[in-house]
C-alpha cells in the first residue's frame, strides 16, 4: 500500500544488488536508525535501557552469529553459550593482563579466541552430519563451563570464576552510563549486521546456503563442504564471541561462568528459530521477542491483579517457550521474519491479494 515502485528502475548491477533496492525501504531504514540513535536515548529510562534495550542489542548480535551457522549453513550448535563465554573471558584476560589495552581491541580479541575454539570443535562436523555436530557443540559447552570454573588462568585466578571489569572507555570516552553502553552496543550491532549481510548475500553466503539446501549438488559445482562449513563456524563464533564480550563487559559488568551456561545456548537457539532461520532481520525479531516475552509474562498477572509466585511464572515461561518452538517449527519454519516479509509482499501488491 505504501509502496510506489514505478520509476525505481535499476541501470547498474550495483544499484540492483544493494541491500534495500526499494526507496521506501531505505527511507524506513533511515527512520529506524534515527529512532534508535536519537529518540531512544532521549526518552528511554535507564531501567528500560539496562533491562531491555542493551540485552536486546547484545543478544541480537549473538543470535545473528548463531543464525549464520544454523540458519544459513544448516549446522546446528548447542554450545553458543560456550563461545560467548570464551569471547567474554578472553576479552577479560587481555583487558586485565595488558594494561592500556583498548576496549574494542580486547572485545575483538575475544571474538578471535572464540573463532579458534569454534573451528576446533567444528572440525568433527566435517566428517559427521547434523546430529553428531549437536553433540560436538555440547561438548564445547561443558568443556568451557568446566574450564572457566577450574582453570585458574582463565579467570585470572579468581575462585568460582566470577570476574568483573570497570572503567570502560573508548579513546577516553567513558562507557558507563546506560545511554553510553546502549549506544556502544548499538554501534557494534549495526556494524556487524552490515558485515554479516554482505557476507550472506555474497559468494560465501551462497556457498553456505548451498551446503544447507543440497550438499551433494553443492559439492558437484565445486563448493568445498569443508571450507564452507569451517568459514561458517569461524564467522559465526567470531560474532558470538564478540557478543559474549559485550554481554560480560557492557551488560553484566561482573559475571561468572553460569552467565553462559547451556540455558544461554538454548535461549539463543530459540531466538534464531522463532525469529527466523536464515534471516538477519530474523535474529533481531527473535532477540526482541525472547527478551521481552518473559518480562511481559512476569508482568501480566500483576496487571490483571492475579499475582502468581515467580516459580510458577518461570515454569509458565518454560512451557510457553517450548510450545512456541514447536509451533513455529511446524507452522512457520522461517519464523517471524517470514511473517514480516509476507506482510511486506502483501503491502507491495495491495490491493491485489497476489
Amino acid at each position: 500500500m505504501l509502496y510506489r515502485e514505478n520509476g525505481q528502475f535499476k541501470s547498474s548491477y550495483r544499484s540492483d544488488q544493494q541491500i534495500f533496492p526499494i526507496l521506501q525501504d531505505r527511507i524506513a531504514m533511515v527512520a529506524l536508525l534515527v529512532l534508535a540513535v536519537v529518540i531512544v536515548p532521549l526518552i528511554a529510562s535507564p531501567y528500560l535501557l539496562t533491562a531491555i534495550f542493551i540485552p536486546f542489542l547484545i543478544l541480537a548480535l549473538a543470535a545473528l552469529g548463531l543464525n549464520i551457522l544454523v540458519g544459513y549453513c544448516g549446522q546446528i550448535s548447542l554450545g553458543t553459550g560456550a563461545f560467548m563465554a570464551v569471547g567474554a573471558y578472553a576479552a577479560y584476560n587481555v583487558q586485565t593482563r595488558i594494561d592500556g589495552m583498548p576496549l574494542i581491541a580486547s572485545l575483538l580479541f575475544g571474538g578471535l579466541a572464540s573463532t579458534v575454539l569454534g573451528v576446533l570443535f567444528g572440525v568433527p562436523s566435517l566428517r559427521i552430519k547434523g546430529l553428531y555436530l549437536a553433540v560436538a557443540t555440547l561438548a564445547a559447552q561443558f568443556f568451557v563451563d568446566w574450564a572457566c570454573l577450574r582453570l585458574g588462568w582463565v579467570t585470572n585466578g579468581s575462585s568460582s570464576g566470577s570476574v568483573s571489569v570497570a572503567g570502560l572507555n573508548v579513546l577516553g570516552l567513558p562507557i558507563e552510563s546506560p545511554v553510553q553502553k546502549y549506544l556502544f552496543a548499538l554501534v557494534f550491532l549495526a556494524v556487524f549486521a552490515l558485515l554479516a549481510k554482505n557476507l550472506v548475500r555474497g559468494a560465501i553466503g551462497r556457498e553456505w546456503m548451498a551446503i544447507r539446501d543440497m550438499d551433494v549438488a553443492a559439492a558437484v559445482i565445486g563448493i568445498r563442504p569443508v571450507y564452507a562449513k569451517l568459514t561458517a563456524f569461524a564467522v559465526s563464533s567470531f560474532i558470538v564471541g564478540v557478543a559474549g564480550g559485550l554481554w560480560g563487559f557492557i551488560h553484566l559488568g561482573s559475571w561468572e561462568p553460569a552467565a553462559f551456561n547451556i540455558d544461554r545456548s538454548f535461549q539463543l537457539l530459540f531466538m534464531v528459530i522463532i525469529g527466523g532461520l536464515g534471516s538477519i532481520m530474523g535474529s533481531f525479531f527473535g532477540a526482541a521477542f525472547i527478551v521481552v516475552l518473559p518480562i511481559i509474562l512476569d508482568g501480566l498477572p500483576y496487571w490483571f491483579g492475579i499475582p502468581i509466585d515467580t516459580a510458577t511464572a518461570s515454569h509458565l515461561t518454560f512451557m510457553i517457550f517450548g510450545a512456541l518452538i514447536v509451533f513455529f517449527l511446524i507452522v512457520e519454519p522461517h519464523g517471524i521474519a517470514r511473517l514480516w516479509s509476507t506482510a511486506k509482499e502483501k503491502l507491495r501488491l495491495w490491493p491485489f491479494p497476489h
Partner: protein
Amino acid sequence: MTTTTFPRLLLSHAAERPAAAALREKEFGIWQTLSWSALATLVRELAGGLAQAGLQRGQHLVVVGENRPRLYAAMLAAQSLGAIPVPLYQDAAAAEFVFPLVNAEVAFAIVEDQEQVDKLIEVRAQCPALARIWFDDPRGLRHYAEPGLAPLDTLIDEGRAFDAQHPTRFDEAVAQTQPADVAAMFFTSGTTGYPKGVVHTHASLIDRAQAGASFDKLTNAEEVLAYLPPAWVGQNIFSYAQWLACGYVVNCPESASTVSIDLNEIGPTYYFAPPRIFEGLLTTVMIRMEDAGRIKKWLFQHYMALARRIGPPLMDGKPVSFVDRLRYALGTVLIYGPLRNTLGFSRVRVAYTAGEAIGPDLFSFYRSIGINLKQLYGSTETAVFVCLQPDHEARADTVGVPIEGVEIKLSDTGEVLVKSTGLLREYYKNPAATREVLTADGWYHTGDAGFLDAGGHLKIIDRAKDVGRLMGGAFDQAMFAPKYVENKLKFFAFIKEAVAFGDQREKVCTFINIDMEAVGNWAEKRNLPYAGYTDLAQKPEVYALIRDCVEKVNADLAADAMLAGSQISRFLILHKELDADDGELTRTRKVRRGFIAERYQVLVDALYGGKTSQYIETQVKFEDGRSGMVSAELKIEDAKTFAAVGRAA
C-alpha cells in the same frame, strides 16, 4: 513549417545533452542506457556501414523486429543517408513480407533475430532484389551459410572503418537531407487488397510530432515504454518521431513476456496504447481482485464507486465538495494510488488511446482513478495527430478537437475530410489510390463518417464506406453503422470480437467471439466444465449470457433515433477466435468484415435463412505455422429488439 530532419534532431540532442539518456533497454537484468552522444556515434557507424554496403539516397531499408535500440539506430542511420526506413510487422507471416519487399525494391534489411531471418530467407526467392540481411541477435544463426547474411556488429565495425576513411561523409549526407525529403514509409495492412505504402516526409512527421508535443506540453523529461510493433505508425510516432522531437527517453522491454514487469519498473510519464491493452489490464485487475479477502474486496468496491462518482468531475476540473475531495484523497491512499502503482501508471502524466472506439466504462475507470487517459484521432496517412482531447475535456464518445495545423470539414456524405501539415505525400507507386484519398486542393478523405459536436469535438460513428442502409423490414432505409454496433457489443467484457451484417438486408445479424479469459472465469465460477474455446462457445449458458448483452445493446440503440434500425435481431457465437494469422483481422486487430462474410458465407446465409443451427468446418493456422481443421454445429439465436424511442415517423 518545420525546418529540420530526424538526423539533425539527433545531432542537436547529442550536442546539447550528450550524456543524457536517449534509449534504455532492459537486458541482462538491468536497464542498459544509451546516451544521446553514444546513440549518435552508433548511428554514424551504422550509416557508414550502410553507405559502404551501397545503400543509396532514396532507397528503402527494411527494418523488422521488436523495439530494439539498435533497430531504432538503424532507421536513423538510413535517414541520415537520405534513404528510407520501412518498418514491417515482426509478427507478420513470411508471405506477408513479399509484397512490401518487392513493391519497394528493397535490397537491404536489418532484422532482430533468427525468427525474422528465417522468414526473409523463406521469401528470398520471390524477392530477388534483397541483397543483404543484417541481424541484431546472433543466437542460433552462427551456422547459417546464407549469402549476404551478416551480424549487425560486423556492419558496425565496417562502418567504423568506413567513417574513419571518409570522416565528412556522414555530416554531408545529413546536411544534404531536406525536411521535404521522404523520411519513412509505413505499410498499412489495408482491410482489403494489398497493403499500401504510406509515404511521409521528415516535415510531415516532425511537424505533427511537435504539434502533439506542444498540445500536451511534453518535455525531454518524459519516460516512454515502447512495446507495440514499431511498424505501427502509432508506436512509431510516440517512440520515434516525438522521441526525437522532444528528446525524451524511450525504454525497450526485456522480452514480450516481461512487458508488465518492465512497465512497472519504468513507470512511464507518457503512455499510448490501443483500447484492447487498457481493456486487458482492466480485466486482469478485476480477475485478480476476485481472489481478494472480504475486507479488501469491500474497500475496493466502495472506493471504486466513490471514484466513479467523484473521479471524472475531478479530472475534468469541475467543482467538487471539500468533503468529497477528502474522501477521494483517502481513496487515493488506500486504493487508487496502489492500483496505479501495480498497473505501472503512478507517474503517467498523459495517456492516449486511439485506433478503436473505447468503451465508456473502460475509459472512465482509468480516468476515475486519476490517470489522465485521453483519446486522439488520426491515421497512418495523417501522421496520427489530427484531433486530441485537451485535459479536462476527455469523453468516451468523442475523439477531441482539431489541433494546431489541422483543418476539418465534412463531405456531404458525412465523411470527415482533413487538411493538415502532416498528411502523407502519396501511396508508394499507387497514384490511383493516392488520388482516391487526396484531393487536388489538399484535402484528405479519412473514410470515416462522423460529425463535430456542439463543443467542437469530433465524433466518429463508423467507416464511411461501411455505413449502409437496411432494405425492407421494419426499418427500411434506416442507417446501419456496423462498427458502431460491433463496438457497443465489444464494450462487454464477455465479447471479444463482433461482426455485424445488415447493409442491403432487412435486419441486422452478428457473429460474436466470446472473450476466452472473461467467459472462462465466468464459467469456472458456475463450475461449468468446458473443453476449449469451441466447446465453451456453444454452451447454452454462454448463449444466454451473450443474448443478455445483445439485448442491452438493442435497448441502447433503440434510444437513438438515427441508429434504432441497427438493432440486432439474430446472432451466433463463432466456433473459433477471429485471428490475424487467418486473415480475419488486420495486424491491428480490426475485423475484415468483407473477408469474413465470404469465408463464412454459409453462416451468414443461415442467419438470414432463419435456421436455428448450422454446421461449419474451418481451416486454421497455428502459431508454429502448421494448420488444422476446426468444426462445430453452431447454434443461432434470436434477440429481443425494441421499438425506437421517439422515432420520427
